Structures are given as C-alpha cells and as structure tokens.
C-alpha cells in the first residue's frame, strides 16, 4: 500500500495532478471540464477529449468504447460516443463543438486505458474546435474538484 502511494505521488507530480488524501479522483490542473465528467485539453484550434478519473472510477472496468468516425461533427454538451462498462453503456459528451480529426484507435484493443490512464493514454478523440468561446462555460480544475465533492457528498 505504501509503495502504491509513493508511485501515485510520483505519477501525480509528473502529470501535474492534484492527489487528494481521502482517495478522491484525480483532477489535472490545466484541463477544462464538463459537468458530465469529460475533460478537454485545448491547444489553439485543436482539442483532446477524454473522461475524467471520477467518471472512470464510478463506471467500473471499461470493456468497449464506441468511437465516432473521423470527420464527424461534435457539439458542446452533446453525445459523440459511449463507453461500456460491464452491463452499462454511458454516453460520452463533447466539451467543445467542431469536427473529429482523430480517434484513439488503441481503445479498440485496450479499452481499459480509460481506467488506467484517463488523462493520458486513455484520450478518446481529437477535435478541430469551431467555437473557442464555449470554453468559457467549462469548469476549471478547482471548480470541477468542488463539483465532484458536492456530487459525491449529496448522495
């Protein structure tokens, strides 16, 4: 257990993740977040999207990812795909509007990357963003952390 915590701290430091001692899900500082638990990393007109550690933790082991086609449109807050975990499919919603330019084909063979590396190897799509203004409606890391605490606390 102690060595796992040490590994977690080193990984957290590398990925610039805040780790909470109560075992809360990790949140990455430089990302933006939707209230349906997706994250987005924006670099100019390009965005990478995935689901958060909170989401993967609550969903359970991911066994299948339904990916969109490259070229498909996505819109802010709307579903673009789904993950299957044991008995449930769960929609994945896009934090941004635009066009899918790349999907993470690795997830076809290794859907568990979403569980083991939700912010890194478990990325789901890359998007050419059409409306950077929508980013203002997303939560930053602190707001998302508080959102998760409130959500978990109210149930």
């Amino acid at each position: 257990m102690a060595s796992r915590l040490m590994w977690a701290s080193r990984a957290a430091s590398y990925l610039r993740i805040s780790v909470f001692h109560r075992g809360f899900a990790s949140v990455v500082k430089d990302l933006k977040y939707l209230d349906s638990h997706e994250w987005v990393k924006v670099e100019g007109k390009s965005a990478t999207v995935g689901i958060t550690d909170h989401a993967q933790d609550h969903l359970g082991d991911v066994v299948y990812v339904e990916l969109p086609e490259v070229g498909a449109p996505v819109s802010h807050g709307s579903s673009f795909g789904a993950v299957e975990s044991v008995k449930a499919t769960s929609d994945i919603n896009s934090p941004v509007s635009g066009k899918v330019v790349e999907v993470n084909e690795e997830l076809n063979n290794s859907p568990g990357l979403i569980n083991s590396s939700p912010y890194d190897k478990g990325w789901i799509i890359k998007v050419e963003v059409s409306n950077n203004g929508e980013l203002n409606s997303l939560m930053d890391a602190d707001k998302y952390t508080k959102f998760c605490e409130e959500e978990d606390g109210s149930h």
Partner: protein
Amino acid sequence: MANPSQLQAHKIGAPLMNQIKLKGVPILQQLHLEECLLRTSSHNWCIINQGTNHPTIVMGVSGKPAELLKIESVLCDQIPVVRRFTGGGTVVLDPSTIFVTFICNKDAVAGLQPYPQPILSWTGALYNKVFQGIGDFHLRENDYVFGDRKFGGNAQSITKNRWIHHTSFLWDYEVRNMAYLKLPARAPEYRLARGHLEFICRMKDYMSRSEFISRTIEAIKTHFSLRSAEAESIETSASFAGIQVKPDNKEFYSIGERLNIY
C-alpha cells in the same frame, strides 16, 4: 394503524412514473420503444412486456456473434439476432421471458447517483421487496439469483440526464434455445464455468407470473406515483395517442404508429 388515505397521502409528491404493459411485443420493437423514450422523453417510464413473440437472441452493444453464438445452429434454425443499445451479455429470449424496464430522469430517485452500480443496487432493493421470503433471492454481482442460479439478467444505458435499466426474467425457457449460446469469455465469478443449464433457473418454480407482476407494481409504488399509459394490457395494436416524441431529426410522430407495435 394507518388507514389507506394516510398511506396514500405519503405518496403525494412522489415522482410520477408512466406504466406501459405489453404482451408478446417483439423484443426488437420493445428496444426501439425504450431507446426512443430514453432519448426523447422527459418522463419516467416502466415497461412490462410479457414475452417476445419469437425466440430471439439479443446481444449487448459490443457483442460479437462469432465469439458468443454457435453460428451454424443459429443460421440453420433462422433465429433472429439483435444487438441492443445497452451493455452486458447475450441472452435468448422467448414468449416465456418477462421484461421489466425502468427509464428515469437522473433525479427521479432521491439520492441515487446515475452510475451503473448505484442503479443496480437500487433495483436490487426494489426486487428484494418483490421476492421477500422467496427462494433466497439476491443481487449477485450484476444478476438476480435464487441461491447461486441466475434468473434475471440486467443491462443499462446512461445518458447525460437519464438512465435505463432493463431486466429479462426467465420465467421459463426452452432448453434447446440455450444451446445457441457459447460459454462467454466474460462471465461473473460466481458462475464458476458452469454451463447454461447449471447456471440458470426458472422463475416459475418460485412464483406465478401474475404474482410477480403485481408484486413488482406494488414495489414500484413505494417509490413512484404510477400511472398507466394505457387502460389495459396490449395484445393487438398499441395506442399511444397523445404521446408525441421528437427524435434528433426533428420529426414528430406517435410512438405507436411509428413503431407499428402489435
């Protein structure tokens, strides 16, 4: 002792759930109805369908026929194979299967987080009331069992604001239909590599069909104020007059007419 008025009074303020009772509606059409209601309605629904009209194999969203089915037998006997929009494994359904489906807004059940495990636990508690004192019922991993034998399989789909949980109950089944299924690679631990016939059991050995349905309805009423979407069970053309749905392509239609449920 509380009188009926007092007991009913506590239900005032309970969320409304529309109940649809069907009989022998083909499972593909039931799934169309469910997906339509999940994605385009803002109401809570409970659908009870007594049997599908023809033996049908239904796989989960990621099911691969070559891995899960004995394809030659399926083709030879012309058994329809359907892929549903929810997760989970493969089942063979027939006129003896009873389907119970809940489609809810994410805030319909106070304090329930809209994730797979909490939803499953909530349904497990509901069915605990249904099967109280009967046959050592419990929720085991993701299945409903009597002892260590499965009689109810579950699957879910969760959207941003709503969720569906549907169950196929093996009130009875044909042994020969189970022969279409291979042993799945992904199986619950408690299955312990048992073949289908050693793993499942028949609900009719524990409870009559009518008692199951009436107990289920009573259990639902402890959470919801239940309203029938139609006056009686449907055996012929379904009428859903007044229920208008608007799918993503912006067309309005009556569920019954569009799905031609009969």
